[in-house]
């Protein structure tokens, strides 16, 4: 991995209100995330963690408030979203997935093998996604974060279906990314192996 990279993105959220349908999930949410921040989102099911992440990703228009990105011309090109679903196609092999993500998201072809190795899937890179376990599928989508360098990581329940080794991998990836000046915002029910720099509780 290129350790000399340094990201410059700062995220500022001001008085954000989000609704799904007619139901206002939350209003008046404000926080900042400077380079190196690891923000944990907490709260019960249905409180709006996923909606907040999707609003930050630009998919969901907020009811009111502002989301500002400093240091990125095109926010959509400066962020990764790891959703509930892994985005895998059953008949394509793991390496093909990573190669596709590199092409689609602006990564270098030279980053494909290192990404696969980092998530521990080099041995199964030629196997079609349908024979991979849930945990392996999740790891494969983690490889997407590595193959195309983007400053902001929006992670929705990233450690779901990961075993202990997988969770340790996730923690070290977050570590590295924050160390390079990246920003990680992750929603989860459980504790992360690495301590967040700030926690936002949605209720």
């Amino acid at each position, binding site marked *: 991995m290129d350790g000399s990279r340094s990201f410059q993105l700062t995220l500022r959220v001001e008085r954000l209100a989000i609704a799904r349908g007619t139901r206002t999930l939350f209003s008046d949410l404000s926080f900042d995330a400077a380079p190196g921040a690891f923000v944990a989102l907490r709260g019960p099911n249905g409180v709006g963690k996923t909606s907040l992440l999707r609003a930050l990703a630009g998919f969901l228009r907020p009811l009111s408030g502002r989301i500002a990105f400093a240091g990125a011309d095109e926010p959509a090109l400066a962020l990764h979203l790891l959703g509930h679903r892994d985005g895998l196609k*059953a008949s394509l092999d793991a390496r093909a997935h990573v190669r596709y993500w590199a092409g689609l998201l602006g990564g270098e072809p030279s980053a494909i093998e290192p990404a696969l190795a980092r998530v*521990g*899937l080099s*041995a*199964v890179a030629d*196997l*079609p996604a349908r*024979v*991979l*376990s849930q945990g*392996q599928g999740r790891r494969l989508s983690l490889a997407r974060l590595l193959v195309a360098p983007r400053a902001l990581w929006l992670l929705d329940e990233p450690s779901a279906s990961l075993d202990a080794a997988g969770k340790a991998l996730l923690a070290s990836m977050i570590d590295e990314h924050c160390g390079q000046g990246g920003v990680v915002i992750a929603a989860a029910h459980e504790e992360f192996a690495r301590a967040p720099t700030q926690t936002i509780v949605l209720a």
Partner: protein
Amino acid sequence: MLDALANPQRFMAFSAWATPALALLAALLFAVGIPWALVYSPADYLQGDSARIMYVHVPAAWWALMIYGFMGVASLIGLVWRHALADVAARAAAPIGATFAGLCLVTGSIWGAPTWGTWWEWDGRLTSMLVLFITYLGYLALWSAIEDEAKAARLAAILCLVGVINLPIVHFSVTWWSTLHQPASVFRPGGSAIDPSMLAPLLIMAGAYAALFGALLLANMRAAIYQRRVEAAMTRRARSA
């Protein structure tokens, strides 16, 4: 014998020698049959040399039908007795039957064109064969569309059996329909008496088609079994990684 072949290992051992043997037999029969059909048998008194295509067309038609019957039997055995390789056999036979049906249609078109004046005429028998061809396509499409192989096998078996019932109904309807539109069928053999000098090469070609079907069927089945093994191996590799 069927029981003996239910074991994939034994089937693989059997087909390892049977496939090349049948392929060789097919090659020999074609080597005898094709020259006999195309050169040495008598020309038809009405249609001349163009009728020689009958020797390709008629066996293809017979076998397209018989292969579908074979698939029906295999489907039934697979459904009722859960014979391990019956489903594999049905699926392996389908592309061969479809190709024979397609060959029958194309040769029928070539054969009839001089007589009809166009490249296709809606003759009763050819139309039935066209419906059979599409039935084959639907069967193959169903297999490809369902992910779970065991489920696909059973669903395809049901489809095949229903198709077996449908085919005589279609043939009857189409023949009745064609008598409305065409007084006489273009194709004589199979329905009327065939001169013995034409019968022998016809039977040899039919035998060649049979051997070809056998060889291709076994080859397809072997490929399907290998495919299963590959899938299992891939799953094992993923688990152990």
